[in-house]
């Protein structure tokens, strides 16, 4: 019961509050929604911590069992500790503004020039940016390999992709400058993005919206239980 019925009950009650609040502005629903939202902000903060602690647990496990590649797990733990120490303890080695308590000083951890800020701009930022930047290479090779006029549908996809690609960069208008004014490749790309593209997106989103609504409804009514797993 504690494992299934209570969570189902919580989901239903909270779900109902958020639905009803949309139609009834009166108390107590106003405050109930307000309080629930505050709690969720805290729960979600802990949920992010949970993910981090999980990562640490898995890494420490690997080191402990000396699994293949455990050295990399050591690097993970080390860099985690380095930035955390910088974030929590920098007031120990940085000059504290007059009249500030330790915590007041620590709360300015994002201020330009702190150790934490240094980590952000010289370690975190280049690493995460480059990770994403490598996608530029892969999108090129994916286009080469997969963007082929195999069928009528694939050809449509290819053509609309071409038009938008040419329309996205200034060189498109230079290459196709002979097209009449108002029919420049950037104009055609604007039209493709704003008309057929919008029609397709709207159809997709209407479908997805209906799917989300019906799943949400099943969750609130307690008909959907897959997410809770089995009775243990």
């Amino acid at each position: 019961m504690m494992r299934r019925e209570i969570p189902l009950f919580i989901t239903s009650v909270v779900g109902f509050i958020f639905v009803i609040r949309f139609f009834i502005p009166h108390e107590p629903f106003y405050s109930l929604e307000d309080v629930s939202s505050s709690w969720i902000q805290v729960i979600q903060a802990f949920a992010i911590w949970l993910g981090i602690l999980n990562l640490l647990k898995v890494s420490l496990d690997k080191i402990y069992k000396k699994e293949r590649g455990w050295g990399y797990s050591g690097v993970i733990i080390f860099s985690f500790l380095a930035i955390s120490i910088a974030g929590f303890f920098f007031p120990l080695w940085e000059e504290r503004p007059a009249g500030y308590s330790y915590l007041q000083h620590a709360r300015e951890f994002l201020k330009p020039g702190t150790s934490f800020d240094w980590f952000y701009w010289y370690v975190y930022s280049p690493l995460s940016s480059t990770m994403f930047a490598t996608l530029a290479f892969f999108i090129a090779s994916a286009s080469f390999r997969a963007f082929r006029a195999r069928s009528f549908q694939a050809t449509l996809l290819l053509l609309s992709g071409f038009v938008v690609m040419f329309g996205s960069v200034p060189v498109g208008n230079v290459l196709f400058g002979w097209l009449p004014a108002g029919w420049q490749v950037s104009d055609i790309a604007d039209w493709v993005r704003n008309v057929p593209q919008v029609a397709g997106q709207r159809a997709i989103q209407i479908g997805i919206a209906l799917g989300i609504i019906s799943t949400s409804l099943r969750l609130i009514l307690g008909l959907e239980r897959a997410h809770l797993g089995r009775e243990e």
Partner: protein
Amino acid sequence: MSQPNPSAPTLGPGFWEKFALLDRRIIFAFIFLGLALPLFYTIRQPIPVSPEGRAYYQSIENLPAGSKVLLSFDYDPPSSPELQPMAEATFKQLFTKNCKLVVIGLWPQGPQQAEQALATALRDPRFKDKKLEYGVNYANLGYMAGNEIVIQKMNADIISTFPSDYKGNATASLPIMRGVRNYKNFDFIINFSSGFVGTREWVQFCVDRSGAKMIAGNTAVQAPENYPYFRSGQLKGLLAGMKGAAEYETVAGQPGKGISFMGSQSVAHLVVILFVILGNIAYFVSRRKW
């Protein structure tokens, strides 16, 4: 570029069959060069401005001087090449109009990106004698976990959603927040987003529930999803990716990184398009048995 010449006598169908299985690292090399080489030259090319980009600029231009504007920074460093130039130019336009700016972030890295954009904008000599002051002309309320719940909660009360700013000051004590309760007290909302949580959620829980006016800057990946909202008027303007940034810089007359990187964009796009064409030729040639 050492482009294979189809008319060369040594190149038969065998070549195209091999070409279809080209090592992807060769494509990678072309892309790298296509992006890097144009950086050494200044390439002047006219930037065509899309209707949604013009609308973005114009809707800020139409704000009454001194308007209160809420900006949400929902992106991280990987998306900053696309969104940071937009943010910087937007800050400049808003400061020129003497708007009062409140910044928040629903992505943890957002407020820090905002700080950097603010610093760049404030270095502009035009604002030197305006004496723009933290807490009076602008404020940064920092990050808050909770995704769409945060947007929804701000419909009721912004100050209790963000009790302190990113420096740890009580939000209620900032002069700029005097008289602010919820979205109704803001004249305009601007969202920079690169995914979830982002523009879709802002439209759903802020624009549609409070009637606020909003414009958005999106990464080019994200933008297609949000064009329907521009089309329907739920968004008053939309900038899509680096091209959007370049368009905005063009209309606002503030050339920045958006424009200067468009040369590399042009060449890289041509490289991709060329490889797709060659790939298709290879596909058709190797499909037809000679």
